[in-house]
């Protein structure tokens, strides 16, 4: 089984520790993970801004790069939704690429759902006992990839106590370029997200999407709110290192 890591451009450039944790966690589970070095970005920023021609070029590059792997695993629901949902939509009218895009979409998995669905594991030997965790349902993971349970299953199996915020399914305000095109609205949404997290009195806020967490953590820091914000893959890897 050949498994490739699509680390995502944000993790590669801005929070590489997430990439490292992804590799180590998957190796811990016996996956011989590869990293195709030609990878860049899935193209979502261009897509969401309405630049279809540019996005198609990026998508073709991405599709070509990952064509020989059985699975492509990534620590993000948003970039995953781009590949799984929007690539095939984009190429609906070009039969040849459509097939390839659909094929890649079928092989692409967000990391926690790869563990629960493909590896079929719940208990990964992580210890997060007594950690009070609030999980942010990132929009694209939730609505385009139907990821609600996988991260929660793994966290629970590790002994974490999940405290649901009443706005766990509400957007954090990131939205890619939206966050810099309409920064005041975006930041107001991030503050509303923080309010919900504060109500849970959780110690840690986690999610499958680093971009949302970057946005929320950036807002929290400006507002002097002190809650640990950590990607679920990093949290789980930390739990594995803590042992059972």
């Amino acid at each position, binding site marked *: 089984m050949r498994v490739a890591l699509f680390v995502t451009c944000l993790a590669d450039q801005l*929070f590489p520790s997430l990439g490292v944790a992804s590799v180590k966690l998957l190796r811990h589970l016996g996956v011989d993970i590869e*990293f195709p*070095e*030609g990878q860049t970005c899935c193209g979502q920023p*261009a897509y969401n801004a*309405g*630049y279809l021609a540019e996005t198609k070029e990026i998508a073709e590059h991405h599709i070509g790069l990952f064509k020989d792997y059985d699975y492509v695993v990534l620590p993000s629901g948003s970039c995953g939704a781009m590949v799984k949902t929007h690539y095939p939509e984009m190429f609906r009218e070009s039969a040849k690429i459509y097939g390839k895009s659909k094929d890649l979409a079928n092989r692409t998995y967000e990391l926690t759902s790869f563990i629960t669905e493909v590896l079929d594991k719940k208990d990964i030997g992580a210890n997060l006992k007594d950690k009070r965790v609030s999980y942010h349902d990132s929009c694209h993971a939730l609505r385009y990839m139907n990821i609600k349970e996988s991260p929660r299953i793994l966290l629970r199996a590790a002994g974490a106590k999940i405290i649901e915020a009443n706005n766990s399914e*509400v957007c954090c305000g990131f939205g890619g370029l939206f966050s810099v095109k309409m920064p005041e609205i975006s930041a107001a*949404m991030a503050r509303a997200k923080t309010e919900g997290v504060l109500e849970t009195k959780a110690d840690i806020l986690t999610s499958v999407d680093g971009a949302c967490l970057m946005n929320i953590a950036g807002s929290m820091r400006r507002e002097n709110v002190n809650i640990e914000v950590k990607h679920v893959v990093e949290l789980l890897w930390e739990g594995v290192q803590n042992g059972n």
Partner: protein
Amino acid sequence: MEISTHDFKNNAKKALKDKNLQIAMKRATKTFVAKREKAISSLDNFEELRSYCGAVKAHTIEHLDYYLEEFISNLENLGVNVHFAADGEEANKIVTQLALEKNVKTVVKAKSMVTEEILLNDALEAVGVEALETDLGEYILQLDGDFPSHIIGPAMHKTKEQITKLFHEKLGSKEDASIIELTAVARKVLRKGFLKADMGISGANFAVAETGSIVLVENEGNIRLTTSLPKIHLTVMGLEKIIPRLKDLPAFLTILPRSATGQKASSYVSLITGPKKETDPDGPEEQHVLIIDNGRSNILADPKLRDALRCIRCGACLNICPVYQNVGGHAYGWVYPGPIGSVLDPGLLGLDSTHQLPQACSLCGACGEVCPVKIPLPELLLEHRQRAVKQGLSAKAEKIGIGAFAFMATHPKLWNSATKIGRLGSQFLSREGHIKGSKIPVMKEWLKERDFKTPAQKSFREQWRNLKDEK
């Protein structure tokens, strides 16, 4: 109201600083969302009903010429006078001429977004006809010289404290009047209005082609009075309001109040089929229906946007939208705000003056999930963004930036060097591991109200070289 769709960004900034608006919006949208969720979860076939209603509307829109003809011929058989208007100006001319011809001095109005769209009240006032809004929310706005910010809760942007003060100043109610007392004061004024009105003007929630019936849904009873008490009843409706058969109606009446106000049923449902007959004890002697295009046929002719005409104006997408929740309806600059407004307004007014609206969205997808007729709102918002790019409406810097980004993303070596320069450059701005201020475009915007964690010096791919050999 002045249309200010082109100025969404500035409108929104002002809205975010308006304390009363912020209080009112948080209260109201929270309540609406919670009530809707409860009402929907009491149904075990909501998804089936959504699919059914979506399909009925889609079918009707695809064959609108046929159903409009059927509707109109049934109206005419019932003795209803049917009028058409290509745009708002023509519509207002028809209504004012009718009012003058019939010697109408005062009009009572039921809540109607299409009459807000064409500014009918201003047109009536200009020819000396007094128009009284009888929906409580609309009446509040009329008293204050304000305009709606929500499709079904027009005064949603006002707090009850603001309304108490307004009523005290304009109607002499007590300074600390309760909501019940305020309603009683309004009721007194409105009752007088109903009794003296020469004409009632309503909108339509649905128009049944098969029977020529106008269907109206409400809670206050003001629509029932508007459509039955005055001698003349005029319905003003957009041409997309048609449903084919009476037996389609129950499904819509199941999802509309649940999606809108979170009620299982609205307090009143009126089915108006023709004017008063000889055997009827009451009702209007004369009935008119004015069918308005005003840009709708442009949307109809556009296969990609056509789905937007399914809208039944429940407002669920507004309530759930985190952008709408934060900025309120006025920021959007026209009568239809929120996700559906950002889809419809460019269709009705053109993208030139409205292209900021589809950008007012983080593409979270919540609107598409709640829409009771399954309008693919996120996809349509993206469609508008793509058109804005094609029409050259996007910022020049953005176009160049995205072009460069796409070139780098397809040339990995260049990508690696460029991102490395960016990452190392950012270290100079870093204080305590974070960047707090910068004059660089994009960074500057991000940093307005948020910090930015300084990127790690070594990217993942640089670390991979060691990591690879670790196993």
